[in-house]
């Protein structure tokens, strides 16, 4: 059983919703990423999504775009990101880590070297935003060889046929994009998310995570009631970018912010 599956099984037994924070590796600087990952765990993260910086993040809003730009100023490469996970694993062997990013850096590294290096570093899952299942065949072969879970997105406008195809291929969990838009948008409609999640539930036993546009503890709590996992990205990255105190105080601030979401989720 993969670490991600194990995580969700345990949480289900406790009737607890998974909290999945997203940060971009290398933001605000590469040395901060591993301390921030530990800070997220301390704040109640069950799984960590670690963003691979990319020069052209087409599906992301301005907040995560700028996080990529900050990370790229320091030259943060895919190999650096994987090395950060290995570093994180020195002190944490439990919390699953999912790499999330765009295909081109993975293409350049090569699918098998990517899967091999990631698995050795302790990565558990991979979500490539611009790789729909139709084009994902050869990467899937490499990821499967190394027992890495390939995670797919489902959107509000995903057709029934595609839903079946995605449910058949996905591993780990399904990432439901809660709105038609980019990350960090503010048009989230909880009722329509609920209806779509019910439709997906009739087709799969995979855990359902919800992300895109979750800004605060209140929305997180509402979505926590109807999903297995809540993903917090832009709201968290916004706090990292707005922080202007001493760098070594940032992890503490992030722990406090995530704890507020954790408490809201657990209070439901």
């Amino acid at each position, binding site marked *: 059983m993969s670490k991600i599956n194990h995580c969700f099984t345990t949480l289900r037994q406790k009737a607890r919703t998974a909290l999945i924070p997203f940060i971009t590796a290398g933001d605000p600087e590469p040395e901060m990423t591993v301390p921030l990952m530990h800070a997220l765990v301390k704040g109640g993260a069950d799984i960590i999504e670690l963003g691979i910086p*990319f*020069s*052209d*993040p*087409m*599906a992301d*809003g*301005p907040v995560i*775009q700028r996080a990529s*730009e900050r990370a*790229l100023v320091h*030259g943060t*490469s*895919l*190999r650096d990101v994987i090395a950060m996970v290995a570093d994180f694993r020195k002190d944490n062997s439990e919390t699953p880590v999912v790499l999330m990013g*765009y*295909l*081109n*850096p*993975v*293409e*350049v*590294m090569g699918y098998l070297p990517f899967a091999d290096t990631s698995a050795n570093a302790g990565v558990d899952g991979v979500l490539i*935003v*611009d*790789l*729909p299942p*139709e*084009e994902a065949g050869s990467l899937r072969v490499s990821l499967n060889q190394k027992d890495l879970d390939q995670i*797919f*997105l*489902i*959107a*509000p*406008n*995903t*057709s029934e046929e*595609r839903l079946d195809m*995605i449910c058949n291929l996905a591993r780990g969990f399904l990432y439901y*994009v809660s709105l*038609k*838009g*980019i990350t960090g*948008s503010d048009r989230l409609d909880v009722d329509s998310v609920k209806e779509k999640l019910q439709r997906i539930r009739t087709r799969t036993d995979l855990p359902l995570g919800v992300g895109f546009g979750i800004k605060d503890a209140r929305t997180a709590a509402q979505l926590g009631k109807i999903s297995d996992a809540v993903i917090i990205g832009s709201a968290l990255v916004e706090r990292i970018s707005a922080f202007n105190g001493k760098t070594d105080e940032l992890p503490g601030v992030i722990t406090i912010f995530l704890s507020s979401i954790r408490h809201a989720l657990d209070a439901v």
Partner: protein
Amino acid sequence: MHKMNSEAGTAHLYRSDMAVQLPDEAGHFGPYGGRFVAETLMGPLEELTVAYKRYIQDPDFLAEFDDELRNYVGRPSPLYHAKRWSEKLGVAQIYLKREDLNHTGAHKINNTVGQALLAKRMGKNRVIAETGAGQHGVATATVAARLGMECVVYMGSEDIRRQAINVFRMKLLGAVVVPVEAGSKTLKDALNEAMRDWVSHVDNTFYIIGTVAGPHPYPVMVRDFQAIIGREARQQCIQQTGRLPDVLIACVGGGSNAIGLFYPFIGDRNVAMFGVEAGGEGIETGRHAASLNAGSPGVLHGNRTYLLEDKDGQIIETHSVSAGLDYPGVGPEHAWLKDSGRANYVVINDDEALAAFHDLTRTEGIMPALESSHALAYATKLAPETEKDRIIIVNLSGRGDKDIHTVATRAGIDI
């Protein structure tokens, strides 16, 4: 004239004898092309593909498209025998396909008319576009005004600064021009931003991509709307000279004017094809936009193709004196034509393109766009080397009025 136009018209969009029947159902040209986008765009792209396949075979749609090309765009564009320039260069006979004479001054309008008519059929009343030099933005704003549609154009803030006249032109036409501040603030970033707009407004919005790149069906759809260039040129060449040309030359940024000229000749094995990329200050300086000559395969903007990227897979900034060629990728069909050997891709530097600009202006009284000047410059290299009376067709994809400030600045003149 009328007879020629109807024979070269859109009814022959699919030539059954075409030697190469690409792309496949999923938009692949060999290993290139495809559909690499986030899940939210998969539905809209499928909807677009279905509508495109339907209307491209629909007689009413094709008749309307033909009529717009003839009476609004001003087609067919002439195939002009540049006799004085040919004589000056040597033994070859050079013919110019005069896309600069189209309404709005470039080939871009062929495609924007096609896509806007399709948008109307699909019930979308808002069109968006990305633009670099502003030619595609102007062409989109023009058809939006013509059809009474809302129009938003995304443009890098750096390009807005460089192309102030085209920005004002778009505004006069009623379009909203949105400056893009992300990344390198140029065409690639404008494309990212237009994609983000489309994801957020898919229900009422049609995204008019200006080149033969992007996720399927854009590369094939834009090709089919631009192929009128090559169909006319093929027929005009036969009428004027009694035979097919020996050589085709076109500039390649994303590659829409080049594919438009090349595609109807792909089955004519004896017709050589040269795509000319922007060498900027020289390939060796790293300041260029020659993705086929100096790039490597990767995935950007929804398709797999040759890209200018660093060792970590990050897209790098490009440079060319002509903003329209300043793009780090290239259409996937060009990537395929390169690998298959059917077309050749060569490089012309800024200085060579500028020399050709002045040369054609003085010799033929035709002021070419700096993009097209790259193709012309390659003709000046090739012409002296070919056998006597070889026929070379150069796609004169746009007029040079938009570039006079750049040309003046390079010459140290303040106008």
